[in-house]
């Protein structure tokens, strides 16, 4: 997109042309009118601040972020003034990217802003300085970061290139879940950044992945729910990366998943975990992992416990995973053994087992599971 660049250079040149035109070429009639017009604009500028270009705004933001970053204890009043300006600038940047209740955003302005943002380290500074900003500025910053992930400059997502070169920023964002004041902001930013497959792969393969099992169970519901949303995004968005991650990390991952999430004392953790497990295992790209999961008697035991829960929603979701054990045509002997031993209990459970809303697919699945279990013969080993 060469157009916005040209336009911008024109505008910068315009600043000088006012005085040049008016002094040297003023005797030429046309130029004179031209310059007069420009001068009147310049005059107006004296009284009403001149609209800044997106590039100016980003540069000014960067300068203030640098100040915020390295002046932890300068004079109070001066500092407050600078932070107030910074908040105002972030608000303006957000309005360029999102528009406001009157106007839609302009794509050229968005592209200029994005390019300048990633040219130097403004993005990093914004993330690092976020805890120093007030709540409104943090929210604006979060929405800016989210939006920048989707901005294309010359049909490239330059945010992705930047993050690949600055992947350590993900470490800051993930550890945000440990700070209640920052968790929702850093969490929302993180979820936007892992839209890029390479970034998601980094987080999946990092040590951070283990921490999510604890973050999901934080006592603050809003933060725990945010961590759960990020966890889900990591494990469902980029199919091939997820399949690769799960097969490489199968043992520790599902050991943690079973013991920490599916057997958690916390109702909401179990409910979210069983739903996500169904989503993961039923995804076609994870079929190898699914087969492996549905061949383990430990897993079956956990699923059968979830089927017996008093919570209807957990029962229904558990059924969607349980059916994989029953439908598996190459059931290991110990799985058959357990199913046969519990046959009458299971069939009794399924007899009056249905979701609140009518669901044909569910009924069909249930009928098949019942047929499978009823027809099982214990195999001699």
């Amino acid at each position: 997109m060469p157009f916005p660049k040209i336009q911008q250079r024109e505008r910068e040149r315009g600043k000088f042309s006012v005085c040049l035109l008016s002094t040297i070429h003023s005797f030429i009639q046309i130029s004179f009118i031209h310059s007069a017009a420009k001068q009147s604009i310049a005059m107006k500028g004296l009284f009403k601040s001149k609209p800044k270009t997106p590039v100016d705004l980003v540069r000014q933001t960067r300068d203030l972020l640098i100040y915020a970053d390295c002046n932890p204890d300068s004079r109070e009043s001066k500092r407050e003034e600078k932070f107030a300006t910074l908040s105002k600038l972030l608000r303006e940047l957000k309005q360029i990217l999102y528009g406001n209740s009157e106007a839609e955003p302009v794509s050229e302005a968005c592209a200029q802003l994005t390019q300048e943002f990633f040219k130097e380290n403004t993005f990093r500074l914004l993330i690092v300085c976020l805890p120093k900003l007030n709540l409104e500025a943090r929210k604006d910053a979060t929405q800016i970061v989210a939006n920048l992930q989707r901005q294309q400059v010359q049909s490239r997502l330059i945010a992705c290139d930047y993050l690949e070169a600055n992947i350590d920023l993900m470490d800051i964002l993930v550890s945000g879940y440990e700070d209640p004041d920052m968790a929702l902001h850093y969490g929302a930013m993180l979820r936007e950044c892992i839209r890029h497959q390479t970034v998601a792969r980094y987080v999946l393969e990092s040590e951070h992945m283990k921490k999510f099992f604890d973050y999901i169970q934080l006592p603050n519901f809003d933060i725990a729910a945010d961590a759960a949303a990020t966890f889900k995004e990591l494990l469902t968005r980029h199919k091939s990366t997820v399949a690769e991650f799960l097969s490489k990390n199968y043992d520790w991952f599902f050991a943690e998943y079973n013991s920490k999430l599916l057997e958690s004392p916390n109702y909401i953790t179990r409910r979210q975990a069983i739903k996500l497990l169904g989503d993961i295992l039923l995804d076609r790209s994870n079929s190898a992992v699914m087969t492996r999961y549905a061949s383990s008697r430990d897993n079956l035991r956990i699923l059968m416990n979830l089927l017996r829960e008093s919570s209807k929603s957990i029962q229904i979701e558990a059924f969607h995973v349980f059916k994989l054990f029953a439908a598996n045509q190459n059931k290991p002997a110990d799985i058959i053994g357990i199913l046969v031993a519990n046959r009458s209990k299971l069939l009794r459970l399924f007899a009056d087992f249905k979701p609140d809303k009518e669901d044909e697919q569910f009924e069909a699945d249930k009928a098949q599971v019942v047929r499978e279990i009823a027809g099982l013969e214990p195999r001699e080993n």
Partner: protein
Amino acid sequence: MFDKIKKRLIGLKKYPIGAEHYELYEEIGQGVSASVYRAKCLDNDEIVAIKVLDFERGNCDLNNVSRESQTMILVDHPNVLKSHCSFVNDHNLWVIMPFMAGGSCLHMLKAFHPEGFEEAIIATILREVLKALEYLHHHGHIHRDVKAGNILISDQGAIKLGDLGVSACLFDHGDRQRARNTFVGTPCWMAPEVMEQLHGYDFKADIWSFGITALELAHGHAPFSKYPPMKVLLMTLQNAPPGLDYESDKKFSKSFKQMTASCLVKDPSKRPSATKLLKHYFFKQARTNDYIARKLLEGLPTIGDRIQTMKQKEEDMLAQKKIPDGQKEEISQASFCE
């Protein structure tokens, strides 16, 4: 200076996580899958309101619940009801919120002002609601359920817009979404473009509902509030927009009528934004919180007692086999959710 310090201290105040830190008192509100209780925070003896939402009841979507809890905790505006914290207790979500001792404007109308409020009160309430909408719209949120039932009054007469249960964020997913296209809200207050579901809708849908709310505060009920939901939809789409045109509306000023009419234009692009509307001449007569406290709250029984009285009244009417008005309205006033 003192105010600044006080503000910071309030900001720093933490509310404990865990049901054992709170003592529940009487129920003060009820929805499809949630109830609101008055309660005491045992750590600081402060009276709070707790919304208890049953994850297992009704069609409760976890994603919506999570989003609402996050929106409400990140809200920081004097006219928007925020939550202090939220946590899971068994099958329930507990959301700790400030206690609004005055109750809702709907409740106030029903119990004490069945013919509507006087103009200066309306202007004061509506200006505060507009400030709330300006703030929410700025952050990309559409409230989607603006009505007297969601306008709450504190013991000091402060006005807060509550219930972000069905609010949506146009800035969700890092992108300005062109528009929303889901059937959400409460029929009587719903803008025509929300009902039509043709081209989607944006912030301006709240301005329509705001206009309907203005009529509600003026008359004591929303237009069409006695009709069943389907009829309300048809009337909103087919009839001319409602306005302040009752015989009894002669008492209201011209600017009030103009302000309301500017919100209730069927073409959303012709409605003013919240920011623009705030500059309307009508709001010049808006007064302070003290005024609201004096005019509406002085000498009233507590909200718990008021609700008890209202329940009693409805039960008595049921016993006489009359369908109470409240119940008729309840049918057309139930919110739709995504």
